[in-house]
């Protein structure tokens, strides 16, 4: 039993051969780092693997651009998330500096929660985090965000429902 070799005619092989230099340049101009550009070029092609349209692209570079933008978004989002988190840790009344091992776990947990809450409006996100991460009561959240108690309740309900459905989607 063997995997058929993606031959020279395989659409991904062609796409890679013809465009990967160009894509790396495109990414490098936005990243200011050749190592990152090489990594993200790799990630971009990996993502195109699952595309059903691979064999019939009219505008291969426009397609690659679209995928690369998503990859770039994830990469930047991850970096900004981590920086904001570390800054917040350092600015605590009692600054916390987790060891590298713990930090690795926290980083992944942050990304997982970020992905989980993706698509929710900022207020819903914030109310949910204050409630479930910081342990504030609905009343405290209403005071802090200067909104009504019923808004907080509605937002938390929406976020919990969102998490439930997201987990359902992830499980299938």
């Amino acid at each position: 039993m063997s995997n058929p070799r993606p031959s020279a005619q395989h659409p991904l092989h062609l796409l890679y051969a013809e465009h990967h230099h160009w894509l790396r340049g495109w990414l490098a101009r936005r990243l200011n780092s050749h190592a990152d550009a090489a990594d993200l070029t790799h990630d971009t092609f990996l993502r195109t693997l699952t595309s059903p349209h691979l064999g019939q692209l009219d505008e291969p570079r426009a397609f690659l651009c679209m995928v690369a933008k998503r990859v770039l978004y994830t990469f930047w989002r991850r970096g900004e998330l981590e920086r904001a988190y570390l800054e917040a840790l350092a600015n605590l009344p009692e600054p916390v500096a987790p060891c590298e091992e713990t930090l690795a776990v926290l980083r992944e947990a942050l990304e997982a929660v970020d992905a989980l809450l993706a698509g929710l409006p900022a207020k819903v996100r914030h109310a949910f985090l204050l409630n479930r991460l910081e342990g504030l009561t609905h009343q405290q959240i209403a005071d802090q965000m200067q909104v009504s108690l019923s808004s907080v309740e509605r937002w938390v309900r929406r976020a919990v429902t969102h998490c439930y459905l997201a987990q359902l989607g992830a499980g299938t």
Partner: protein
Amino acid sequence: MSGRSLAALTPAVREAIEWSVRLGSGAATAADRDAFEQWQALDASHRQAWQAVTQATHTPLNPLLEVPGSASAATRALRSSGLSLQRRRLLRGGSVLLLMLGLPALLTVQRRMPLDAVFSDHYSGTGERRRIQLADGSVLLLNARTTVEVAFSAEARVIHLRHGELNIQVARDPHRPLEVVTAQGRVRALGTRFSVATLDQRSAVSVQQHSVQVRNRAGQSIVVDSGQTLRFADDALSPLGNEQGRLDAWMEGRLEVDDASLGSVIDALRPYRYGVLRVSPAAAQLRVFGVFPLDDSDRALQSLAQVLPISVEAFGPITLIDLR
């Protein structure tokens, strides 16, 4: 929310969500809690729904709650979604940003599947062993997450092991020697059956029948006989004596260790597992003896937790192993 996902909100789930909101509001009374107990006792579907809702909200947040101060820092970092304005400008163009919001953060995991797998002749995925019959009649067995390229010509038979571990039963062909090439050197078949593995900066070879000749990049050369194991780097050859049974147990889906570090045992389990396995530096040093099933890594981890002073906890795709 699509119609399909709304259909998942059964009455029991809707009620469970209401309970989750109510009990987490900080204003729940003793009467509320009694009513909740009764609701739970009423029907198994209630308990099931409650468990699912609780898990969906708790599991992802749990790791952030364990480090003091982390919860409020995480709230700050996570409260806004999206990117800084400057970077958003760099991505400007069309509706792409909207599409991006729902992306799963699985890229880290995917990067482990090397892109060269796509262009390789043969590869095996996570948790998968493959048996491949080559054109010359040789039989190649790939351990999980392994990639190889086969280059057979009229003069030679060369198999490039890019990543992972293989075993090969070589078909006899006196005119075309067979070689397995790794980043550190070449293994030439003088006999019929042997295994090659790539490790970090090193390779290992063990011979089941007859012998092989190993030449590393520095040009050092040695013959490894049946029953022997050799580890080699760019500029070093280190015979390991008879560890063959243990190194080759993967072919039967077993991992056999005799006084190995927990860290190396976890390394051997990784190709059989989706998601991330993390072992703390202190736990990684524990010594392990025993036989573990590769195809059921959950069970392997359970067995480890029974004999070692470790805790194994799963947070979604992340499994954490630490000293108890």
